[in-house]
């Protein structure tokens, strides 16, 4: 581009800046129109895709559920039903079975492992435990860290992971922690994958943060969430 700017001065008959401005404006307008058309044309398909993809993952980790309603928990701990897409809330999805009874709550969590990590876990309010886990987004080292998404032994940790809240303070009785492979003793501990401890620990940390922050709010508004399914 420097070449052109140098030439502009030395060329004997450079076209006037008017024609340049006209052409650039015309091209920019045409481009703008094209982009807006494409944006409008694909908008519905994209929204549909995003909705199906969350719906599928939610129903996958809540096997008894047949439909779901999204909720959001904001910073003050208030629960809003069907929050706006760009609202600053933690997303949770309540799943209901055919009779409309609450079949579990799927909660989104994210944090840092080696890289950004995004998970979804299933919480059963009546049993006060985590009973399902799925990695949504993971850029961990292939073949090592990404075992947190696939290894059955690790995923077995989340069949019945204790997340009991203290009835008085509503804080978790035992924060969820990741322990070294083979040393799991208590039902609130996660047995790490040997060789992928950092990623396993990241999962534990995400769950600990998320349960400490969200579960009190959820149990506080459980009646509302239950009622939403009966409608």
């Amino acid at each position, binding site marked *: *581009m*420097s*070449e052109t700017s140098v030439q502009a001065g030395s060329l004997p008959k450079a076209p006037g800046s008017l024609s340049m401005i006209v052409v650039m404006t015309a091209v920019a307008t045409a*481009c*703008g129109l094209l*982009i*807006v058309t494409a944006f409008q044309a694909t908008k519905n398909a994209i929204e549909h895709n995003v909705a199906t993809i969350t719906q599928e993952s939610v129903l996958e980790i809540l096997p008894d559920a047949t439909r779901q309603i999204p909720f959001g928990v904001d910073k003050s701990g208030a629960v809003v039903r069907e929050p706006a897409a760009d609202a600053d809330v933690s997303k949770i999805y309540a799943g209901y079975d055919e009779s409309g009874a609450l079949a579990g709550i799927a909660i989104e969590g994210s944090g840092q492992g*080696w890289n*950004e990590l995004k998970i979804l876990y299933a919480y059963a309010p009546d049993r006060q435990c985590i009973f399902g886990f799925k990695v949504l987004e993971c850029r961990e080292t292939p073949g090592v860290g990404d075992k947190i998404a696939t290894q059955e032994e690790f995923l077995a940790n989340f069949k019945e992971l204790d997340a009991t809240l203290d009835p008085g303070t509503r804080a978790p009785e035992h924060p969820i922690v990741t322990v070294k492979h083979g040393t799991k003793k208590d039902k609130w501990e996660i047995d790490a994958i040997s060789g992928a401890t*950092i990623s396993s620990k990241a999962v534990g940390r995400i769950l600990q943060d998320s349960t400490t922050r969200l579960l009190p709010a959820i149990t506080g508004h459980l009646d509302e969430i239950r009622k939403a399914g009966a409608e």
Partner: protein
Amino acid sequence: MNSASLWFIFIDSLLINNLVLAVFLGICPFLGVSGKLDTAIRMGGAVVFVMLVSSALAYGMNVLLVRLDAEYLRIISYIVVIASTVQLVEMFIKKKSPALFRALGIYLPLITTNCAVLGVAMFQTIRDYSFVQSMVFSLGSGLGFTLALVIMSGIREQLNLSDVPNAAKGTALALMVAGILSMAFMGFAGLGSN
């Protein structure tokens, strides 16, 4: 808002997820300009500078686009921001320091099509970095780019003197070296995180 600490972002962009060796951005100058140590340092300097300016501008641009609800113009406006930054920087340097301008010479306009600059702007948007985080991220990325370029050019200066089969000379060998470097940089993984 992204919650990552500034120190982590810096280490991450400089070493762990090095722009060139782990994210594959800016490969063209990496292979093309890394023949000599001296040019590598100059190119690196130019990239760090442009990256800082353009990522600050891109941050402002994004705030504006989000407010106007016109995020679909992001790509086009980023590239315009970067191209004009490069032009402005070029004009500024030409006026203030002709010596530096001659030294950077052709590298400045080349930066417009350096995907590293656009890449940094896109990454900071996708990761939802705050302004300070974005600046640290672009500084780390630029220095990381320079670091990779300098290491590579050092190795290539040595390689020129060694006996290599004809077929492997040039890009093929450079890529193999880059592969080994990239493996070495993987050793930094885990640094800075708890």
